[in-house]
């Protein structure tokens, strides 16, 4: 019983995005053995120390601990009866029978019966709030609602005054019981389900086309983008110098060992230096592309841990450096301002490229990844492919991202096919997942 309590608690934690490995679960079991269940506060301290490994996880733990252990009576090892085994017994005429319970009015007995019924109904598998009613029904069934209903019908059939009154009582009691079961199921949903729903929603969001996003999803999107940024950061924040064991650095070794009479005690190996990642983003902020740009820049700026050097330029008619504007806390507001200020004129790729050439050419160097976000629709102006070629030659890699599908490239005023030969990659991006994949690829070139 005691172990089941802990396992279920860990399941609840996992569904709320706290990562608990098997090893940690074993540690927790050992720690609990040491501390015991008697002191609630101490138990909370202990589990918090063993299972939750970051401030946000600690918060999640505290919330769930209160929810979970207020619901769950602290288990007593002395209690021999296990809930799984005596199922058949008490649905017959056990202490859990609903009629007896209602008559006795014993609060603890009712609470325990609810707990048991919840387990029988598989309440820990609840995932969505819509399932609450269903699970409450199931619980009623295992509480023995059938017997109650039979008795009720019988009382009605007697057609006496007492019989009527008794039946009314039963109906009232049934209602109260159902309300309790509902409450119980709802609490279980908050423990096991709320986190799971969130995870599910995030999966869906990551695959939703950015241009089709609902306004109410925007806030959630921000959280998702931060999560992705964290994932990318932990993957790419490796050390900058890579030891190249195997190749002797003769000069360094000789110098280091001059003091030992030239006997090579201290051996130096050749090292290759990794470039610091630098990203220059050039974004078309007019019309259709703006939405995608928004999330791309949001993701990019959440990455400043791994990419210390980010420069970003926005253009439609003219090109401007927007790096400083974006380095604020209120990202959404800054983005709105940029789109309003810059995105209002008609798109001119040629003019924007020559602005880049004139004013910001220093931003491009051999360790730069140049990422251009735009549909390449230049209103039939000169696309200045020559400038683009020159830029591509200066930098490490050029990536072009466009919201349009490949079949549309080159249709109408789209100049994408003319830019394409100078890009290392040209890809369509529609979802956040696409953005993640692209940045992941770009960053892995620096390892």
């Amino acid at each position, binding site marked *: 019983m005691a172990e089941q309590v802990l396992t279920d608690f860990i399941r609840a934690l996992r569904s709320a995005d706290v*990562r608990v*490995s098997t*090893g*940690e679960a074993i*540690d927790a079991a*050992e*720690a609990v053995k*040491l501390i015991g269940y008697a002191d609630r*506060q*101490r138990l909370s*301290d*202990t589990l*918090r*120390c*063993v299972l*939750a*490994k*970051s*401030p946000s996880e*600690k918060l999640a733990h505290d919330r769930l601990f209160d929810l979970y252990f207020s619901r769950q009576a602290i288990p007593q090892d002395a209690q021999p009866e296990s809930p799984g085994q005596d199922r058949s017994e008490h649905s017959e005429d056990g202490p859990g029978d609903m009629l007896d319970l209602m008559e006795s009015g014993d609060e603890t007995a009712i609470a325990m019966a609810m707990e048991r019924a919840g387990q029988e109904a598989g309440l820990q598998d609840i995932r969505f709030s819509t399932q609450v009613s269903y699970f409450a029904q199931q619980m009623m069934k295992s509480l023995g609602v059938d017997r109650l209903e039979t008795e009720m019908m019988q009382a009605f059939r007697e057609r006496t005054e007492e019989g009527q009154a008794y039946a009314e009582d039963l109906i009232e009691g049934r209602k109260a019981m159902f309300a309790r079961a509902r409450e119980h199921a709802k609490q279980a949903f908050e423990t096991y389900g709320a986190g799971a729903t969130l995870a599910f929603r995030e999966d869906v969001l990551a695959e939703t086309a950015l241009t089709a996003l609902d306004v109410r999803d925007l806030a959630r999107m921000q959280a998702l983008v931060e999560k992705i940024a*964290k994932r990318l*950061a*932990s993957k790419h*924040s*490796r*050390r900058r*110098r890579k030891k190249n064991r195997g190749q002797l650095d003769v000069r360094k070794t000789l110098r280091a060992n001059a003091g*030992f*009479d030239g*006997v090579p*005690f*201290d051996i130096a190996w050749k090292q290759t230096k990794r470039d610091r990642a630098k990203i220059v983003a050039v974004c078309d902020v007019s019309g259709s592309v703006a939405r995608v740009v928004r999330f791309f820049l949001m993701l990019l700026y959440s990455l400043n*841990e791994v990419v210390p050097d980010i420069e970003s330029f926005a253009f439609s008619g003219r090109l401007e450096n927007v790096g400083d504007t974006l380095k604020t806390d209120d990202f959404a507001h800054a983005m709105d301002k940029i789109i309003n200020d810059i995105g209002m004129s008609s798109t001119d790729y040629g003019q924007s490229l020559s602005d880049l050439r004139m004013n910001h050419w220093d931003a491009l160097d051999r360790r730069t990844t140049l990422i251009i976000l735009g549909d390449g629709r230049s209103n039939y102006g000169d696309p200045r492919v020559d400038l683009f070629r020159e830029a591509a030659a200066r930098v490490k890699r050029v990536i072009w991202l466009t919201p349009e599908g490949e079949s549309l490239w080159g249709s109408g005023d789209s100049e994408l096919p003319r830019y394409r030969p100078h890009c290392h990659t040209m890809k369509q991006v529609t979802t956040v997942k696409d953005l993640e994949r692209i940045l992941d690829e770009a960053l892995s070139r620096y390892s």
Partner: protein
Amino acid sequence: MTKTGYEPLVSIDAITAGLGSVGYISTREISTAIYLAYNLRKPILIEGPAGVGKTDLAASTARFLDVSLNRLQCYEGLDEGKALYEWKYGKQLLYTQLLKEKLGEVMDGAGTLDAAFDKLTSFEDLFFSETFLEPRPLLTAMKQDKGSVLLIDEIDKSDEEFEAYLLEVLSDYQVTVPEIGTIRAQVPPIVILTSNNIRELGDALKRRCLHLHIDFPEAAREQAIVRARVPDVSEALLSQLVSFVQGLRELDIRKRPSISETVDWARTLLLMHATELDEDMVRSTLNVLLKHESDIQAVDKDVRTLARAASAG
């Protein structure tokens, strides 16, 4: 089993009391973490803002248990040679020179090159023995018979490679020196790692450690800490200065004052014979608490309200 220094760690309350006796005001959570670390033989990873007593906890634990403290300060580029052990090259070289003549005598009996080589190989271990081994903090901590406290400070500043390397040391409490063999700790040290969150630590390391987050203390605990460090300060002043600092931490500033800065400030005020907090006094000593000019300017307009609130409360 030899007698270890860990006996005082019998219960959580005993730990709180013991740490208190060496001047460290513990909390339930901190004591629980130490208790678990000893009983589960797991390292503790402590995170939290700078200056809340993370490093001090390790030092105090060592003092309380009366065992040695081995401290390893991490930085970028730290490698095994500096953390674990190193051969004393100089000494080896010197001995070779000194023994050169003796070598001639030993070799004298050997007629052929093969015989000389055989003789030489039988002496080889001489130079790669513990005499020539320079133990660094990790190895030193493993070799303590009474047990010890091993502090790995600011692990987030080291490279990821080193972090991975630590995993072996921390999970088995043993160290392998290829020339000598495996050295296993007779009494596993109590390991405390600290991190200021400069970079996200690897999951593998986090999984193996207990995790303790120490934040800025609440008023009562901060008062207790200052009282322990600066016993001469009057109660009235103590409660005022602590509530002033607590108020200061709420403001939007670059570096929030840490506990050590509160203690310094208490000492400063004592030195100036202050019995109560007043605005001028606060203004003239604000640089003890705030270490950025911009912060001092930022709080300038709030000093009056904060000082008033502190004296009132």
